[in-house]
């Protein structure tokens, strides 16, 4: 019989376990934690509290707290392999984790179990695979031609190949020394991400591929893949980038139709919930990676049921279409107007802060109040109530953002309708 107690064996097992394990309560206060988990947590905490999971990760994964809070059931898996980017910068031990993976399981109403593992290597490999995929796709797809441009770190064109002339309509010799953004009109094209952001990502990941409409010098639009690759930093020269542009065959009608069907509301043509949700996830990534905030407006037509009851559904439908047309006209280039259902709509506003969102909501309110639809028994008018919220206010949580905007919409309703709810500056 072993002279070691089973408790001691269990302790040894937990001390040596090469995966981080911890148990905490719903507020994140850690009850049990093995050394491997603490090894990951402690360097991230700085002056924050290392004995609380959510405080320890506040700076690198603020969303984790809300993800856990938003999970309603008493037991179950809250998240599986949630990626936490923890680049600690230079001067830290080489080989220390860049990316942690966190899995949270709820064992009871006030009991959470978490694992933390270093997945930096895996992330690097995934990136390599994606890169290989990108290049294979580039080689295999039918292609009309490549334009390659070398730019320096200030985005000034160093050189461009002959195909650049053919593709963009700008003479490849004359563009040397010019700003690539200006030549391509890239910042004005409304593409996501912008060229500058693509370069930032390429600086971090080595490359970035994007697809969207581009305009030739003569004004003609073409569907363009834009690949930005960071030049090797081992060279003695200043760092810079290669940009590859290629004119890919346009999506054929069938695909475009299918895409429209999947992404829009059949009655009004506004984006549907699914499209809104995808776009919000994209913006959430931008918020996390580039600290680019965004805002959401939700609006609900006032007393819409009575319009349907008195004037009939066809008139109600006309009114809904009118609302979409009026509001969509007011949107910024990358904004999205979506129908959430019934007479409820939302506008997603990239890079809009609270004040800008409130101002736009006010414009939308006026536009809707000015709408008229003719019915057999007279003129129908409409008003709507509005709530706005920013992703910062929701600490990066999409569900939180929707809930906050919704709550404000209902305050606007309670306060008498046909108004934008303005948050008071003072604490509640």
């Amino acid at each position: 019989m072993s002279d070691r107690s089973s408790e001691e064996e269990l302790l040894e097992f937990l001390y040596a376990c090469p995966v981080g394990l911890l148990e905490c309560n719903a507020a994140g206060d850690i009850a049990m934690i093995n050394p491997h988990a603490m090894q990951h947590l402690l360097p991230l905490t700085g002056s924050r509290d290392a004995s609380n999971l959510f405080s320890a990760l506040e700076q690198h994964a603020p969303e984790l707290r809300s993800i856990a809070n938003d999970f309603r059931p008493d037991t179950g898996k809250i998240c599986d392999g949630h990626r936490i980017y923890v680049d600690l910068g230079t001067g830290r031990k080489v080989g220390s984790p860049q990316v942690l993976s966190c899995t949270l399981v709820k064992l009871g109403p006030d009991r959470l179990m978490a694992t933390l593992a270093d997945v930096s290597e895996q992330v690097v490999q995934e990136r390599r695979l994606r890169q290989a995929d990108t290049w294979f796709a580039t080689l295999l797809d039918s292609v009309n031609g490549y334009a390659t441009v070398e730019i320096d770190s200030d985005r000034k064109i160093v050189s461009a190949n002959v195909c650049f002339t053919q593709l963009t309509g700008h003479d490849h010799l004359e563009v040397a020394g010019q700003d690539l953004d200006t030549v391509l009109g890239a910042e004005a094209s409304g593409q996501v991400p912008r060229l500058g952001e693509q370069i930032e990502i390429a600086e971090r990941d080595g490359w970035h591929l994007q697809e969207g409409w581009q305009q030739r010098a003569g004004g003609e639009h073409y569907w363009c893949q834009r690949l930005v690759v960071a030049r090797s930093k081992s060279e003695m020269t200043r760092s810079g980038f290669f940009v590859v542009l290629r004119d890919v065959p346009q999506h054929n009608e069938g695909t475009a139709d299918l895409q429209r069907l999947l992404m829009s509301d059949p009655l009004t043509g506004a984006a549907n919930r699914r499209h809104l949700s995808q776009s919000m996830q994209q913006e959430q990534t931008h918020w996390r990676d580039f600290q680019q905030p965004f805002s959401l407006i939700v609006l609900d037509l006032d007393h819409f049921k009575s319009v349907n009851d008195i004037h009939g559904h066809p008139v109600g439908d006309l009114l809904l279409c009118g609302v979409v047309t009026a509001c969509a006209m007011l949107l910024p280039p990358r904004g999205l107007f979506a129908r959430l259902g019934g007479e409820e709509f939302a506008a997603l506003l990239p890079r809009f802060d609270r004040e800008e969102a409130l101002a736009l909501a006010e414009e939308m309110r006026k536009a809707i109040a000015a709408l008229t639809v003719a019915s057999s028994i007279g003129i129908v008018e409409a008003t709507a109530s509005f709530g706005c919220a920013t992703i910062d206010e929701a600490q990066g949580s999409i569900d939180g953002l929707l809930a906050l905007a919704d709550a404000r919409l209902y305050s606007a309703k309670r306060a008498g309708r046909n108004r934008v709810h303005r948050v008071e500056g003072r604490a509640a």
Partner: protein
Amino acid sequence: MSFEAVTLAELEAMSATEHNLLPYGVVGFSQDTTVNVYNATEARMAGLDASQVVGAHFFEAVAQCMNNFMVAQRFQDEPELDDIVPYVLTLRMRPTRVRLRLLARAGGLRRYILVER
């Protein structure tokens, strides 16, 4: 022989019995981080038997939570080291605020970590 005052030379000169009488944890390890000294206080706090720890690689098998730039890396980077750092250990899997004293000198037989909870 307090936590703050004890010197590396004094620790080197002590017998295992004397190490065991100290009221704070004492871990001594060689250049390749193999543990040679693991006193009774540390064994009690961590819940481990010294006989299981001596001979193991400290940062890899025993104290993974110190295997980062705040502790292990400092022993690698600084041949001469005498510093006290506030830290959080996982003694018996509970987060425990402690003070660590890191001791090393160039050409020394062992390096030491003292643990005061």
